[in-house]
Protein backbone atom coordinates (compact mmCIF):
# COMPACT_ATOMS: atom_id res chain seq x y z
CA UNK A 1 0.00 0.00 0.00
CA UNK A 2 1.28 3.50 -0.77
CA UNK A 3 2.34 5.46 2.27
CA UNK A 4 -0.01 8.20 3.38
CA UNK A 5 1.53 11.51 4.36
CA UNK A 6 -0.18 12.62 7.55
CA UNK A 7 0.28 16.25 8.68
CA UNK A 8 2.73 16.33 11.56
CA UNK A 9 0.15 17.94 13.84
CA UNK A 10 -1.94 14.74 13.93
CA UNK A 11 0.82 12.22 13.25
CA UNK A 12 0.96 10.89 16.80
CA UNK A 13 -2.78 10.61 17.38
CA UNK A 14 -4.36 7.23 17.87
CA UNK A 15 -6.14 5.88 14.82
CA UNK A 16 -9.92 5.96 14.90
CA UNK A 17 -11.29 2.44 14.47
CA UNK A 18 -14.97 3.08 14.98
CA UNK A 19 -17.40 5.87 15.74
CA UNK A 20 -20.85 5.75 17.30
CA UNK A 21 -23.45 7.77 15.47
CA UNK A 22 -26.85 7.43 17.14
CA UNK A 23 -29.69 8.03 14.72
CA UNK A 24 -33.33 8.82 15.30
CA UNK A 25 -36.33 8.22 13.12
CA UNK A 26 -39.80 9.63 13.58
CA UNK A 27 -42.75 7.98 11.96
CA UNK A 28 -46.49 8.28 11.73
CA UNK A 29 -48.30 5.15 12.80
CA UNK A 30 -51.71 4.37 11.41
CA UNK A 31 -53.43 1.57 13.31
CA UNK A 32 -55.71 -0.73 11.36
CA UNK A 33 -59.47 -0.88 11.85
CA UNK A 34 -59.25 -3.37 14.73
CA UNK A 35 -56.68 -1.38 16.71
CA UNK A 36 -58.50 1.91 16.04
CA UNK A 37 -61.81 0.53 17.23
CA UNK A 38 -60.13 -0.89 20.32
CA UNK A 39 -58.24 2.32 21.14
CA UNK A 40 -61.27 4.62 20.69
CA UNK A 41 -63.22 2.55 23.21
CA UNK A 42 -60.18 2.19 25.46
CA UNK A 43 -60.24 6.00 25.77
CA UNK A 44 -63.80 5.54 27.13
CA UNK A 45 -62.57 3.02 29.73
CA UNK A 46 -63.91 0.10 27.77
CA UNK A 47 -61.91 -2.98 26.72
CA UNK A 48 -62.97 -4.59 23.46
CA UNK A 49 -62.26 -8.11 22.28
CA UNK A 50 -62.66 -9.44 18.75
CA UNK A 51 -64.64 -12.59 18.08
CA UNK A 52 -63.32 -15.22 15.70
CA UNK A 53 -65.96 -16.09 13.09
CA UNK A 54 -64.51 -19.61 12.96
CA UNK A 55 -65.11 -20.85 16.50
CA UNK A 56 -66.03 -17.83 18.61
CA UNK A 57 -62.61 -17.49 20.27
CA UNK A 58 -62.23 -14.01 21.80
CA UNK A 59 -58.99 -12.15 21.06
CA UNK A 60 -57.89 -9.27 23.31
CA UNK A 61 -56.60 -6.88 22.19
CA UNK A 62 -58.25 -7.28 18.75
CA UNK A 63 -55.75 -8.09 16.01
CA UNK A 64 -57.94 -7.80 12.93
CA UNK A 65 -57.59 -11.44 12.00
CA UNK A 66 -57.64 -14.79 13.76
CA UNK A 67 -53.95 -15.82 13.79
CA UNK A 68 -54.90 -19.49 13.35
CA UNK A 69 -57.06 -19.15 10.26
CA UNK A 70 -56.44 -15.68 8.88
CA UNK A 71 -60.17 -15.07 9.15
CA UNK A 72 -61.33 -11.45 9.45
CA UNK A 73 -62.48 -10.66 13.00
CA UNK A 74 -64.74 -7.62 12.69
CA UNK A 75 -67.19 -8.42 15.46
CA UNK A 76 -66.33 -6.83 18.80
CA UNK A 77 -67.48 -7.59 22.34
CA UNK A 78 -67.00 -5.56 25.49
CA UNK A 79 -64.86 -7.36 28.05
CA UNK A 80 -64.92 -7.25 31.85
CA UNK A 81 -62.01 -5.55 33.62
CA UNK A 82 -61.08 -8.69 35.52
CA UNK A 83 -59.09 -11.75 34.59
CA UNK A 84 -56.28 -14.00 35.71
CA UNK A 85 -52.54 -14.46 35.27
CA UNK A 86 -51.59 -17.04 32.64
CA UNK A 87 -47.93 -16.81 33.56
CA UNK A 88 -45.51 -14.11 34.64
CA UNK A 89 -41.94 -12.90 35.01
CA UNK A 90 -40.38 -11.14 37.99
CA UNK A 91 -38.03 -8.74 36.27
CA UNK A 92 -34.91 -7.19 37.77
CA UNK A 93 -33.85 -5.47 34.56
CA UNK A 94 -34.83 -1.83 34.00
CA UNK A 95 -36.57 -0.75 30.80
CA UNK A 96 -35.17 2.45 29.25
CA UNK A 97 -37.72 5.23 29.15
CA UNK A 98 -39.88 3.70 31.86
CA UNK A 99 -39.58 4.38 35.54
CA UNK A 100 -40.39 1.09 37.20
CA UNK A 101 -39.31 0.08 40.65
CA UNK A 102 -37.37 -3.20 40.56
CA UNK A 103 -38.30 -5.93 40.68
CA UNK A 104 -41.55 -5.59 38.82
CA UNK A 105 -43.98 -8.25 37.64
CA UNK A 106 -44.91 -8.52 33.98
CA UNK A 107 -47.71 -10.99 33.41
CA UNK A 108 -49.81 -12.48 30.64
CA UNK A 109 -53.29 -11.31 31.64
CA UNK A 110 -56.23 -13.35 30.37
CA UNK A 111 -59.42 -11.32 30.76
CA UNK A 112 -62.51 -13.26 31.79
CA UNK A 113 -63.94 -14.63 28.56
CA UNK A 114 -60.77 -13.99 26.52
CA UNK A 115 -58.84 -16.79 24.81
CA UNK A 116 -55.43 -15.14 24.46
CA UNK A 117 -53.45 -13.10 26.94
CA UNK A 118 -51.66 -9.78 26.73
CA UNK A 119 -48.58 -8.66 28.59
CA UNK A 120 -49.11 -6.14 31.36
CA UNK A 121 -47.80 -4.87 34.67
CA UNK A 122 -48.97 -6.38 37.97
CA UNK A 123 -48.55 -4.35 41.18
CA UNK A 124 -49.86 -4.20 44.76
CA UNK A 125 -48.55 -7.75 44.95
CA UNK A 126 -45.22 -8.86 46.44
CA UNK A 127 -43.39 -10.93 43.77
CA UNK A 128 -43.21 -14.00 46.00
CA UNK A 129 -47.00 -14.00 46.29
CA UNK A 130 -47.67 -13.82 42.55
CA UNK A 131 -49.04 -17.06 41.09
CA UNK A 132 -50.13 -18.60 37.81
CA UNK A 133 -53.94 -18.59 37.94
CA UNK A 134 -54.13 -15.62 40.34
CA UNK A 135 -57.19 -13.40 39.74
CA UNK A 136 -56.54 -9.74 38.97
CA UNK A 137 -58.40 -6.52 38.13
CA UNK A 138 -57.46 -3.38 36.22
CA UNK A 139 -56.42 -0.19 38.01
CA UNK A 140 -57.22 2.72 35.68
CA UNK A 141 -55.73 6.19 35.57
CA UNK A 142 -57.92 8.98 36.99
CA UNK A 143 -60.72 9.77 34.50
CA UNK A 144 -59.32 13.19 33.56
CA UNK A 145 -56.00 11.62 32.53
CA UNK A 146 -57.45 8.93 30.29
CA UNK A 147 -56.69 9.30 26.60
CA UNK A 148 -55.84 7.48 23.38
CA UNK A 149 -52.98 5.53 24.88
CA UNK A 150 -52.24 2.00 25.99
CA UNK A 151 -51.21 3.36 29.40
CA UNK A 152 -54.81 4.08 30.52
CA UNK A 153 -54.54 1.03 32.73
CA UNK A 154 -51.77 1.74 35.23
CA UNK A 155 -51.42 -1.87 36.31
CA UNK A 156 -53.34 -4.94 37.44
CA UNK A 157 -53.76 -5.97 41.06
CA UNK A 158 -54.91 -9.14 42.85
CA UNK A 159 -58.63 -9.34 43.64
CA UNK A 160 -58.19 -11.86 46.44
CA UNK A 161 -60.62 -14.31 44.83
CA UNK A 162 -59.60 -18.00 44.64
CA UNK A 163 -57.03 -18.84 41.92
CA UNK A 164 -57.85 -20.71 38.73
CA UNK A 165 -56.31 -24.18 38.79
CA UNK A 166 -53.02 -24.42 36.81
CA UNK A 167 -54.63 -26.63 34.16
CA UNK A 168 -57.22 -23.96 33.41
CA UNK A 169 -54.97 -20.91 33.57
CA UNK A 170 -53.71 -19.11 30.47
CA UNK A 171 -53.61 -20.97 27.17
CA UNK A 172 -54.29 -24.28 28.96
CA UNK A 173 -57.78 -22.97 29.70
CA UNK A 174 -58.69 -23.11 26.01
CA UNK A 175 -59.45 -26.79 26.37
CA UNK A 176 -61.93 -25.96 29.09
CA UNK A 177 -63.39 -22.78 27.61
CA UNK A 178 -63.22 -23.53 23.91
CA UNK A 179 -64.50 -26.45 21.91
CA UNK A 180 -61.15 -28.18 22.47
CA UNK A 181 -61.15 -29.56 18.96
CA UNK A 182 -58.81 -27.15 17.26
CA UNK A 183 -55.68 -28.51 18.89
CA UNK A 184 -56.66 -32.14 19.42
Amino acid at each position, binding site marked *: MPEINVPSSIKDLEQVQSVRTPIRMEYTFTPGVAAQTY*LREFANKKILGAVSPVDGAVLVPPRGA*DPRYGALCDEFVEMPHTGHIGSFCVTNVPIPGRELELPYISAWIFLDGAD*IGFLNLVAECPPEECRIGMRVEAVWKPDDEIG*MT*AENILYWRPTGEPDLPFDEAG*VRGWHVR*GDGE*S*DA
Partner: protein
Amino acid sequence: MAAGGELAAVVGVGMTKFSATRGDVSMPGLVREAAERALKDAEMEWEDIDAVVMGKAPDFFEGVMMPEIFLGEALGAVGKPMLRVHTAGSVGGSTALVAASLVHSGVHERVLTVAWEKQSESNAMWALSLKQPFQVSINAGAGGYFSPIIRQYMEETQAPELIGCMVAFKDRQHALLNPYAHLHQPDLTFDQVVESPMLWEPIRYSETCPSSDGAAAMVIVNETEAKKSANPAWIHAGAMRSEANNFPGRDEVNPQASRECASDLWNQAGIKNPREEIDVAEIYVPFSWYEPMWLESLGFCERGDGWKLVESGATHIDGGDLPINCSGGVLSSNPIGASGMIRFAEAALQVRGMAGEHQVEGARKAMGHAYGGGAQYFAMWVVGKDKPTT
Protein backbone atom coordinates in the same frame (compact mmCIF):
# COMPACT_ATOMS: atom_id res chain seq x y z
CA MET B 1 -33.48 -38.77 0.51
CA ALA B 2 -34.70 -35.86 2.55
CA ALA B 3 -35.83 -33.14 0.22
CA GLY B 4 -35.82 -35.41 -2.82
CA GLY B 5 -33.38 -34.96 -5.65
CA GLU B 6 -29.61 -34.72 -5.30
CA LEU B 7 -27.69 -35.76 -2.23
CA ALA B 8 -25.91 -32.94 -0.46
CA ALA B 9 -23.06 -32.82 2.03
CA VAL B 10 -21.07 -30.35 4.09
CA VAL B 11 -17.40 -30.41 3.07
CA GLY B 12 -16.25 -27.17 4.65
CA VAL B 13 -16.90 -25.53 8.02
CA GLY B 14 -15.51 -22.22 9.25
CA MET B 15 -16.12 -20.17 12.36
CA THR B 16 -14.67 -17.04 13.86
CA LYS B 17 -13.58 -16.77 17.44
CA PHE B 18 -16.70 -15.59 19.29
CA SER B 19 -16.32 -12.72 21.73
CA ALA B 20 -18.17 -9.75 23.18
CA THR B 21 -16.40 -7.34 20.84
CA ARG B 22 -14.52 -8.26 17.71
CA GLY B 23 -13.11 -4.76 17.45
CA ASP B 24 -10.34 -5.98 15.15
CA VAL B 25 -12.70 -6.64 12.23
CA SER B 26 -15.52 -4.84 10.47
CA MET B 27 -18.76 -6.63 9.53
CA PRO B 28 -17.31 -7.58 6.12
CA GLY B 29 -14.09 -8.71 7.83
CA LEU B 30 -16.06 -10.86 10.26
CA VAL B 31 -18.06 -12.76 7.64
CA ARG B 32 -15.02 -13.13 5.41
CA GLU B 33 -13.01 -14.69 8.22
CA ALA B 34 -15.58 -17.48 8.66
CA ALA B 35 -16.06 -17.92 4.90
CA GLU B 36 -12.31 -18.17 4.22
CA ARG B 37 -11.95 -20.85 6.88
CA ALA B 38 -14.85 -22.83 5.38
CA LEU B 39 -13.30 -22.60 1.90
CA LYS B 40 -9.91 -23.66 3.23
CA ASP B 41 -11.49 -26.64 4.97
CA ALA B 42 -13.27 -27.53 1.72
CA GLU B 43 -10.01 -27.03 -0.22
CA MET B 44 -11.77 -24.60 -2.52
CA GLU B 45 -11.19 -21.12 -3.89
CA TRP B 46 -13.70 -18.28 -4.12
CA GLU B 47 -14.25 -18.98 -7.83
CA ASP B 48 -15.34 -22.55 -7.07
CA ILE B 49 -18.49 -21.27 -5.38
CA ASP B 50 -21.70 -21.09 -7.45
CA ALA B 51 -23.91 -19.13 -5.06
CA VAL B 52 -23.96 -17.57 -1.58
CA VAL B 53 -26.76 -17.82 0.97
CA MET B 54 -26.57 -15.46 3.93
CA GLY B 55 -28.56 -15.16 7.13
CA LYS B 56 -28.62 -12.91 10.16
CA ALA B 57 -31.08 -11.62 12.74
CA PRO B 58 -33.30 -8.63 11.86
CA ASP B 59 -31.54 -5.68 10.19
CA PHE B 60 -32.43 -3.24 12.96
CA PHE B 61 -30.06 -5.00 15.37
CA GLU B 62 -27.01 -3.38 13.75
CA GLY B 63 -29.05 -0.80 11.90
CA VAL B 64 -27.65 -1.89 8.53
CA MET B 65 -30.46 -2.43 6.08
CA MET B 66 -30.07 -5.36 3.66
CA PRO B 67 -26.50 -6.12 4.77
CA GLU B 68 -26.32 -8.93 2.21
CA ILE B 69 -25.77 -6.25 -0.42
CA PHE B 70 -23.13 -4.48 1.62
CA LEU B 71 -21.39 -7.82 2.31
CA GLY B 72 -21.61 -9.27 -1.20
CA GLU B 73 -18.06 -8.31 -2.12
CA ALA B 74 -16.56 -9.63 1.11
CA LEU B 75 -18.23 -12.97 0.39
CA GLY B 76 -17.07 -13.20 -3.21
CA ALA B 77 -20.66 -12.98 -4.39
CA VAL B 78 -20.24 -10.35 -7.08
CA GLY B 79 -21.83 -11.66 -10.24
CA LYS B 80 -23.20 -14.73 -8.45
CA PRO B 81 -26.65 -15.53 -7.12
CA MET B 82 -27.01 -14.39 -3.52
CA LEU B 83 -29.92 -15.09 -1.20
CA ARG B 84 -30.75 -13.65 2.20
CA VAL B 85 -32.80 -15.61 4.73
CA HIS B 86 -34.89 -14.07 7.54
CA THR B 87 -36.26 -16.26 10.33
CA ALA B 88 -35.21 -14.39 13.49
CA GLY B 89 -33.09 -16.45 15.91
CA SER B 90 -33.54 -19.67 13.92
CA VAL B 91 -32.05 -17.98 10.86
CA GLY B 92 -28.66 -19.68 10.98
CA GLY B 93 -30.39 -23.04 10.67
CA SER B 94 -32.87 -21.94 8.02
CA THR B 95 -30.04 -20.39 6.02
CA ALA B 96 -28.16 -23.70 5.96
CA LEU B 97 -31.35 -25.47 4.85
CA VAL B 98 -31.94 -22.97 2.05
CA ALA B 99 -28.33 -23.46 0.91
CA ALA B 100 -28.82 -27.23 1.03
CA SER B 101 -32.03 -26.94 -0.98
CA LEU B 102 -30.11 -25.24 -3.80
CA VAL B 103 -27.96 -28.37 -3.99
CA HIS B 104 -30.77 -30.91 -3.42
CA SER B 105 -32.69 -29.29 -6.25
CA GLY B 106 -29.75 -29.51 -8.63
CA VAL B 107 -29.70 -25.76 -9.18
CA HIS B 108 -26.13 -25.43 -7.85
CA GLU B 109 -23.23 -27.77 -7.13
CA ARG B 110 -21.22 -25.78 -4.58
CA VAL B 111 -22.91 -23.29 -2.28
CA LEU B 112 -21.32 -21.11 0.39
CA THR B 113 -23.56 -20.30 3.32
CA VAL B 114 -22.74 -17.76 6.01
CA ALA B 115 -24.55 -16.46 9.09
CA TRP B 116 -23.40 -13.77 11.46
CA GLU B 117 -24.11 -11.10 14.04
CA LYS B 118 -22.05 -8.24 15.38
CA GLN B 119 -23.76 -7.58 18.67
CA SER B 120 -21.08 -5.10 19.76
CA GLU B 121 -22.32 -2.78 17.01
CA SER B 122 -25.91 -3.37 18.00
CA ASN B 123 -28.16 -3.61 21.02
CA ALA B 124 -30.18 -6.75 20.55
CA MET B 125 -31.81 -6.74 23.94
CA TRP B 126 -33.46 -3.40 23.35
CA ALA B 127 -34.01 -4.07 19.68
CA LEU B 128 -36.20 -6.92 20.93
CA SER B 129 -38.04 -4.60 23.31
CA LEU B 130 -38.91 -1.78 20.91
CA LYS B 131 -41.87 0.22 22.08
CA GLN B 132 -44.77 -0.63 19.81
CA PRO B 133 -47.30 2.13 19.18
CA PHE B 134 -50.30 1.85 21.51
CA GLN B 135 -48.91 -1.09 23.43
CA VAL B 136 -47.70 -1.15 27.00
CA SER B 137 -43.90 -1.22 27.11
CA ILE B 138 -43.19 -3.85 29.72
CA ASN B 139 -41.07 -6.56 28.13
CA ALA B 140 -37.38 -6.40 28.98
CA GLY B 141 -35.62 -8.38 26.25
CA ALA B 142 -35.88 -12.03 25.30
CA GLY B 143 -35.49 -13.15 28.91
CA GLY B 144 -38.66 -11.31 29.82
CA TYR B 145 -40.46 -13.13 27.04
CA PHE B 146 -39.23 -16.65 27.77
CA SER B 147 -39.35 -16.48 31.57
CA PRO B 148 -43.16 -16.98 31.80
CA ILE B 149 -42.90 -19.96 29.45
CA ILE B 150 -40.12 -21.52 31.53
CA ARG B 151 -42.19 -20.90 34.66
CA GLN B 152 -45.04 -22.90 33.14
CA TYR B 153 -42.68 -25.76 32.29
CA MET B 154 -41.37 -25.83 35.85
CA GLU B 155 -44.87 -25.86 37.30
CA GLU B 156 -46.15 -28.39 34.77
CA THR B 157 -43.33 -30.89 35.41
CA GLN B 158 -42.53 -30.03 39.03
CA ALA B 159 -38.88 -30.24 37.98
CA PRO B 160 -36.28 -29.54 40.70
CA GLU B 161 -35.45 -25.84 40.82
CA LEU B 162 -31.76 -26.21 39.99
CA ILE B 163 -32.11 -28.16 36.70
CA GLY B 164 -31.54 -24.93 34.77
CA CYS B 165 -28.34 -24.27 36.72
CA MET B 166 -27.13 -27.79 35.89
CA VAL B 167 -27.59 -27.09 32.17
CA ALA B 168 -25.79 -23.75 32.41
CA PHE B 169 -22.88 -25.24 34.34
CA LYS B 170 -22.62 -28.18 31.93
CA ASP B 171 -22.55 -25.94 28.84
CA ARG B 172 -19.89 -23.68 30.39
CA GLN B 173 -17.80 -26.78 31.10
CA HIS B 174 -18.26 -27.90 27.49
CA ALA B 175 -17.19 -24.47 26.29
CA LEU B 176 -13.76 -25.02 27.84
CA LEU B 177 -13.26 -27.73 25.21
CA ASN B 178 -14.01 -25.34 22.34
CA PRO B 179 -11.39 -22.70 21.51
CA TYR B 180 -13.95 -20.69 19.50
CA ALA B 181 -16.43 -20.34 22.40
CA HIS B 182 -17.00 -16.86 23.77
CA LEU B 183 -17.27 -17.74 27.48
CA HIS B 184 -14.29 -19.54 28.91
CA GLN B 185 -14.82 -19.65 32.68
CA PRO B 186 -12.47 -22.34 34.01
CA ASP B 187 -12.96 -21.24 37.61
CA LEU B 188 -16.76 -21.14 37.50
CA THR B 189 -18.40 -23.32 40.16
CA PHE B 190 -21.91 -24.73 40.26
CA ASP B 191 -22.59 -22.67 43.38
CA GLN B 192 -21.65 -19.50 41.53
CA VAL B 193 -24.22 -20.32 38.87
CA VAL B 194 -26.86 -20.91 41.56
CA GLU B 195 -25.93 -17.72 43.40
CA SER B 196 -25.85 -15.49 40.32
CA PRO B 197 -28.55 -12.81 40.43
CA MET B 198 -32.07 -13.43 39.20
CA LEU B 199 -32.60 -11.29 36.12
CA TRP B 200 -35.94 -12.54 34.90
CA GLU B 201 -37.05 -14.88 37.67
CA PRO B 202 -36.87 -17.87 37.32
CA ILE B 203 -33.92 -17.10 34.98
CA ARG B 204 -30.61 -16.28 36.65
CA TYR B 205 -27.82 -14.26 35.06
CA SER B 206 -25.66 -17.39 34.61
CA GLU B 207 -28.57 -19.18 32.92
CA THR B 208 -28.62 -16.70 30.04
CA CYS B 209 -26.56 -16.55 26.86
CA PRO B 210 -23.87 -13.91 26.37
CA SER B 211 -23.98 -11.21 23.71
CA SER B 212 -21.41 -12.12 21.06
CA ASP B 213 -19.83 -11.09 17.79
CA GLY B 214 -19.20 -13.87 15.35
CA ALA B 215 -19.87 -15.69 12.11
CA ALA B 216 -20.16 -19.27 10.91
CA ALA B 217 -19.92 -20.60 7.37
CA MET B 218 -20.30 -23.88 5.52
CA VAL B 219 -19.67 -25.15 2.03
CA ILE B 220 -22.47 -27.46 0.90
CA VAL B 221 -21.96 -29.53 -2.26
CA ASN B 222 -23.59 -32.22 -4.35
CA GLU B 223 -22.62 -35.90 -4.39
CA THR B 224 -20.04 -35.61 -7.18
CA GLU B 225 -18.21 -32.86 -5.34
CA ALA B 226 -18.60 -34.56 -1.96
CA LYS B 227 -16.72 -37.60 -3.26
CA LYS B 228 -13.59 -35.42 -3.45
CA SER B 229 -13.78 -34.86 0.31
CA ALA B 230 -12.20 -37.24 2.80
CA ASN B 231 -14.95 -36.74 5.35
CA PRO B 232 -18.17 -35.18 4.09
CA ALA B 233 -21.10 -34.72 6.48
CA TRP B 234 -24.06 -36.08 4.49
CA ILE B 235 -27.34 -34.28 4.97
CA HIS B 236 -29.89 -36.95 5.89
CA ALA B 237 -32.84 -34.69 6.62
CA GLY B 238 -33.85 -31.05 6.96
CA ALA B 239 -37.10 -29.51 8.17
CA MET B 240 -38.56 -26.09 8.92
CA ARG B 241 -41.86 -25.09 10.54
CA SER B 242 -43.37 -21.94 12.01
CA GLU B 243 -46.45 -20.83 13.89
CA ALA B 244 -47.99 -17.60 15.21
CA ASN B 245 -46.77 -16.55 18.65
CA ASN B 246 -50.12 -15.96 20.32
CA PHE B 247 -53.33 -17.84 19.56
CA PRO B 248 -56.03 -19.64 21.56
CA GLY B 249 -54.79 -22.93 22.94
CA ARG B 250 -51.19 -22.43 21.86
CA ASP B 251 -48.86 -24.85 23.63
CA GLU B 252 -46.12 -22.36 24.49
CA VAL B 253 -43.96 -24.87 26.34
CA ASN B 254 -44.01 -27.47 23.56
CA PRO B 255 -45.14 -25.70 20.38
CA GLN B 256 -46.96 -27.65 17.70
CA ALA B 257 -44.56 -26.31 15.04
CA SER B 258 -41.61 -27.72 16.98
CA ARG B 259 -43.20 -31.14 17.43
CA GLU B 260 -44.22 -31.37 13.78
CA CYS B 261 -40.83 -30.16 12.56
CA ALA B 262 -39.08 -32.85 14.62
CA SER B 263 -41.48 -35.54 13.51
CA ASP B 264 -40.92 -34.63 9.84
CA LEU B 265 -37.15 -34.62 10.44
CA TRP B 266 -37.01 -38.07 12.04
CA ASN B 267 -39.27 -39.50 9.31
CA GLN B 268 -37.03 -38.14 6.56
CA ALA B 269 -33.93 -39.50 8.29
CA GLY B 270 -35.56 -42.88 8.92
CA ILE B 271 -34.99 -42.45 12.64
CA LYS B 272 -37.43 -44.27 14.90
CA ASN B 273 -35.78 -43.68 18.27
CA PRO B 274 -33.81 -40.41 18.37
CA ARG B 275 -32.40 -41.10 21.83
CA GLU B 276 -30.83 -44.34 20.55
CA GLU B 277 -29.93 -43.32 17.03
CA ILE B 278 -28.57 -39.79 17.45
CA ASP B 279 -25.02 -39.74 18.82
CA VAL B 280 -24.77 -36.05 19.59
CA ALA B 281 -27.02 -33.00 19.19
CA GLU B 282 -26.53 -29.27 19.10
CA ILE B 283 -29.77 -27.70 20.30
CA TYR B 284 -30.57 -23.99 20.49
CA VAL B 285 -30.60 -23.24 24.23
CA PRO B 286 -30.25 -19.50 24.94
CA PHE B 287 -31.83 -19.91 28.38
CA SER B 288 -30.83 -23.02 30.34
CA TRP B 289 -34.32 -24.48 30.85
CA TYR B 290 -34.78 -24.79 27.10
CA GLU B 291 -32.54 -27.86 27.11
CA PRO B 292 -35.03 -30.10 28.94
CA MET B 293 -37.95 -28.40 27.16
CA TRP B 294 -36.57 -29.09 23.69
CA LEU B 295 -35.41 -32.62 24.60
CA GLU B 296 -39.09 -33.37 25.19
CA SER B 297 -40.41 -31.51 22.20
CA LEU B 298 -37.88 -33.16 19.87
CA GLY B 299 -38.85 -36.63 21.05
CA PHE B 300 -35.61 -37.54 22.84
CA CYS B 301 -37.83 -38.45 25.81
CA GLU B 302 -41.45 -38.36 26.93
CA ARG B 303 -43.09 -35.10 27.82
CA GLY B 304 -42.22 -34.19 31.40
CA ASP B 305 -39.02 -36.25 31.42
CA GLY B 306 -36.55 -33.77 29.89
CA TRP B 307 -35.30 -32.58 33.25
CA LYS B 308 -34.61 -36.18 34.26
CA LEU B 309 -32.22 -36.57 31.33
CA VAL B 310 -30.40 -33.44 32.47
CA GLU B 311 -30.32 -34.56 36.09
CA SER B 312 -28.97 -38.00 35.14
CA GLY B 313 -25.98 -36.50 33.33
CA ALA B 314 -27.10 -38.02 29.99
CA THR B 315 -26.49 -34.73 28.18
CA HIS B 316 -22.92 -34.20 29.47
CA ILE B 317 -20.06 -34.97 27.08
CA ASP B 318 -18.29 -36.72 29.93
CA GLY B 319 -20.15 -40.00 30.33
CA GLY B 320 -23.53 -39.01 28.86
CA ASP B 321 -25.16 -41.18 26.19
CA LEU B 322 -26.83 -38.17 24.53
CA PRO B 323 -24.28 -35.35 24.72
CA ILE B 324 -25.97 -32.00 24.05
CA ASN B 325 -24.11 -28.84 23.01
CA CYS B 326 -20.57 -30.14 23.31
CA SER B 327 -19.40 -26.85 21.81
CA GLY B 328 -20.74 -24.97 24.83
CA GLY B 329 -23.92 -24.09 22.97
CA VAL B 330 -25.73 -20.79 22.70
CA LEU B 331 -25.22 -20.39 26.47
CA SER B 332 -21.49 -19.95 25.79
CA SER B 333 -21.54 -18.06 22.45
CA ASN B 334 -24.45 -16.11 21.01
CA PRO B 335 -23.83 -14.16 17.82
CA ILE B 336 -27.62 -14.37 17.31
CA GLY B 337 -27.87 -14.72 13.53
CA ALA B 338 -24.98 -17.19 13.50
CA SER B 339 -26.12 -19.21 16.52
CA GLY B 340 -28.38 -21.53 14.52
CA MET B 341 -25.70 -22.14 11.89
CA ILE B 342 -23.15 -22.89 14.60
CA ARG B 343 -25.49 -25.66 15.82
CA PHE B 344 -25.76 -27.07 12.29
CA ALA B 345 -22.02 -26.68 11.66
CA GLU B 346 -21.09 -28.30 14.97
CA ALA B 347 -23.29 -31.28 14.09
CA ALA B 348 -21.37 -31.54 10.80
CA LEU B 349 -17.99 -31.27 12.56
CA GLN B 350 -18.97 -34.11 14.89
CA VAL B 351 -19.80 -36.61 12.14
CA ARG B 352 -16.70 -35.52 10.23
CA GLY B 353 -14.61 -36.27 13.34
CA MET B 354 -13.31 -32.70 13.37
CA ALA B 355 -14.70 -31.35 16.64
CA GLY B 356 -11.34 -31.43 18.39
CA GLU B 357 -11.47 -31.64 22.17
CA HIS B 358 -15.27 -31.64 22.20
CA GLN B 359 -15.48 -34.52 19.72
CA VAL B 360 -17.89 -37.30 20.70
CA GLU B 361 -16.03 -40.51 20.01
CA GLY B 362 -17.40 -42.39 17.01
CA ALA B 363 -20.25 -39.96 16.29
CA ARG B 364 -22.03 -41.10 13.10
CA LYS B 365 -25.33 -39.22 13.28
CA ALA B 366 -25.81 -35.75 14.67
CA MET B 367 -28.65 -33.29 14.92
CA GLY B 368 -28.51 -29.51 14.55
CA HIS B 369 -31.44 -27.43 15.82
CA ALA B 370 -32.43 -23.78 15.93
CA TYR B 371 -35.46 -21.82 17.07
CA GLY B 372 -36.42 -18.19 16.87
CA GLY B 373 -39.01 -15.49 17.50
CA GLY B 374 -41.36 -16.29 20.37
CA ALA B 375 -40.32 -19.98 20.13
CA GLN B 376 -42.27 -20.06 16.87
CA TYR B 377 -39.73 -20.60 14.04
CA PHE B 378 -37.91 -23.92 13.84
CA ALA B 379 -35.12 -25.31 11.67
CA MET B 380 -33.48 -28.71 12.12
CA TRP B 381 -31.20 -31.08 10.30
CA VAL B 382 -29.64 -34.50 10.67
CA VAL B 383 -26.18 -35.11 9.24
CA GLY B 384 -24.35 -38.42 9.05
CA LYS B 385 -20.90 -39.84 8.50
CA ASP B 386 -22.51 -42.32 6.09
CA LYS B 387 -24.40 -41.54 2.93
CA PRO B 388 -28.19 -41.70 3.40
CA THR B 389 -29.40 -45.12 2.30
CA THR B 390 -32.98 -44.38 1.29
